């Protein structure tokens, strides 16, 4: 109804009443005899947009914002699952955290896995995207294949990788055995466990990032490359001097998103672990900060301390995000 009226020729309105500015006709319409529908439609016009976005904000409020703020409150208390709130202790949980070797270990693991996972992942994604951006036979097949790991179920991922990285019967160790290399205790040796987890992360996320890069590359005008070719620039040079600079905003976007995602790393190390205790190996070799949060809160029932760790992690993510932004603007202003 609304759209019909709004679309009606101006002359029709004119016939009813003199024009009094853009807001008047609506006001007048409300007084029209027998125009209940019109009144409703004006409420509809004003209220509907809020109604439509309301579900998101209601859900975000209930499951996002409220828990976020409530966690701050909980982190200032001694708080357990069974006993509930056991008293205000101020910043004690935060003080404890800074002298907690397990927290530093988990932070070291998280940052370490982040570095060895994300850097190769983004580089490989760039190269993959660049390859697919050239004339390749069966392009859409490869594009589809790249996204497959991303949509594979986590349960399947867990089964496959636990078979691959088994110490006794694992496929990789058996292959190493044929080459005469001693079996590797993938879950026991800290840096090997990092490598295995980084491999799982990259397997799942490289294709996703490659598709983002590919989309960005396809918007780079072809004539720039043609001009460069005419000037005799090699493919390598074109990649570094055209593709990379043109993709800079996209690269920054993926770096930020990956940083946020990797700081909260949980799924891959959790399914890599044996058992559900979130220990991250026999000695916390690959226990990430999120796993420590889970362990403290849901395994040990120490909600207060778990919340404090979660908040420190949130602050770290914000801090890293800010560093990213500052570096980005530096790079922008430099060029």
């Amino acid at each position, binding site marked *: *109804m*609304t*759209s019909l009226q709004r679309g009606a020729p101006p002359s029709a309105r004119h016939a009813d009443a003199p024009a009094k500015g853009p807001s008047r006709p609506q006001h007048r319409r409300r007084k029209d005899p027998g125009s209940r529908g019109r009144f*409703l*439609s004006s409420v*509809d016009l004003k*209220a*509907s947009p809020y*109604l*439509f976005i*309301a*579900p998101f904000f209601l859900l975000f409020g209930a499951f996002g914002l409220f828990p976020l703020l409530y966690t701050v409150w909980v982190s200032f208390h001694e708080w*357990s*699952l*069974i006993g509930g709130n056991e008293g205000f202790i101020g910043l004690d949980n935060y003080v404890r955290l800074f002298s907690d070797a*397990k927290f530093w270990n988990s932070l070291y693991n998280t940052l370490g896995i982040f570095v060895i996972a994300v850097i190769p992942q983004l580089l490989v994604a760039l190269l993959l995207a660049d390859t697919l951006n050239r004339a390749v036979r069966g392009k859409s097949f490869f594009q589809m294949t790249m996204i497959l790991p991303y949509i594979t179920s986590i349960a399947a991922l867990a*089964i496959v990788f*636990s*078979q691959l990285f*088994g*110490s*006794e*019967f*694992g496929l990789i160790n058996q292959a190493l055995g044929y080459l005469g290399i001693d079996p590797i*205790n993938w*879950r*026991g040796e800290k840096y090997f466990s990092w490598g295995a987890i980084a491999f799982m992360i990259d397997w799942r996320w490289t294709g996703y990032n490659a598709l983002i890069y590919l989309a960005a590359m396809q918007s780079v005008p072809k004539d720039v490359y043609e001009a460069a070719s005419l000037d005799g620039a090699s493919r390598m040079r074109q990649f570094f001097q055209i593709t990379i600079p043109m993709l800079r905003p996209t690269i920054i976007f993926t770096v930020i998103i990956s940083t946020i995602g990797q700081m909260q790393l949980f799924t891959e190390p959790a399914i890599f672990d*044996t*058992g*559900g*205790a979130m*220990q991250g*190996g*026999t*000695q916390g070799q690959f226990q990430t900060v999120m796993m420590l949060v889970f362990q*403290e809160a*849901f*395994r*040990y*029932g*120490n909600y207060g301390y778990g919340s404090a760790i979660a908040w420190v992690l949130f602050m770290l993510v914000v801090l890293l995000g800010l560093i990213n932004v500052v570096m980005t603007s530096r790079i922008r202003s430099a060029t």
Partner: protein
Amino acid sequence: MTMRMRGARAAAALVGGGALVLAATACGGDGGSGGDVELVIDTFGVMGYDERIKQFEEENPGVTVEERNVTDVADYTPQLQQNIAAGSGAGDVVAIEEANIAQFLVQADKFADLNEYGGADLKDDFLEWKWEQGTTPDGALIGLGTDIGGMGMCYNVPLFEDAGLPTDREEVGELWPTWDDFIETGEEFMEADTGASFVSTIQPYFRAVTAQAGGEPFQDTEGSLVLEENDATRDSYDTVTDMSEAGLSASLPIWSDEWNAGIQNNTFATLPCPAWMLGHIESTAGDEGLGRWDVAAVPGGGGNWGGSFLAVPEQSEHPEEAAELAKFLTSPEGQLSAWNEANTLPSSPEALESPDVTEFTREYFNDLPVGEIYAPSALELEPVYYGPDTQSIDDAFRAALESVEQGQASPKEGWDTAVEESKRAVGEG
């Protein structure tokens, strides 16, 4: 009408409708079923109650029972804990696993004291330690025992043959009256160089040895950590780390894919076996494993791992009927019915001694007389008190023991880590 209007009305209708549904559900709880009682029983795994529940319904006209089953106890327990904490959502009768019973005993005010429903008279129907486990220090009866695990020692017959050890279950049992003898047998086995290890991982042995010592291995009834003061716990730890120092362990983390593959590929020769472990071996080893595993007496005599309880949450609207159902299912006849249906080893001495149990043999394990092997070990057991944080303490020891057998830590370092981690779990760290 435009799409926008339609959308807004639909949204309004949805919100209104949702409220109606909520209201209807809220009313539903108050009954209106005309005097009939509907009971819900929450269970996990296979309890074997189908037959007995039917019988209960026949004997109590007007009462219907619905069984809500969750396969994995690890999914079941957190959900139950949340329902208990929230004060709604739990069944009228709920099953609780042995390792988690203390966690619920400290919340005794959320459960009916079954003594008030005639439970006090039933003491003789249960093994003493099982009865104690379901009772709070103040004497409130929270959980009535269902089944128990018992303890035997599974051994791989072909591997024992290869190593030149006896294969008859009586003779095998005589090899190891004590755990020291068990380790010596293990060294002998390793010298024979069969390519297999004597134990899969030392973790389940730790459970078996601590259970035999009885008492309060980890926490006292106040919930304080006592594992450092308890010499028996340290002795158990030393016993099993001696196994790994002697090179007996295949270091396969328990329940992992690797460990299951070890069962299939004859990678290890022994495994502590509660009665329910037989089911796991049978389903993991499959047809090829027929007759390959057998069960002998466990070193040190007796033991238990696992088993459950039935409790009635305070939130139940029909506590009387619910308590009747719990008593009906856990009575000697009820336990025998469950044994016949699902082979769960009874916690009632009377049921354990009945011919149904003692004369039962299991073909897959060379016609193993399951009842005959397990019943005596259960009757001998000392009561063990598992504190409210047993699960986490167990996890801590598991990680420490694995780090020792994988050569990442010395036994002393492993112990220190496990103690430190247990303190965190209990909230003393």
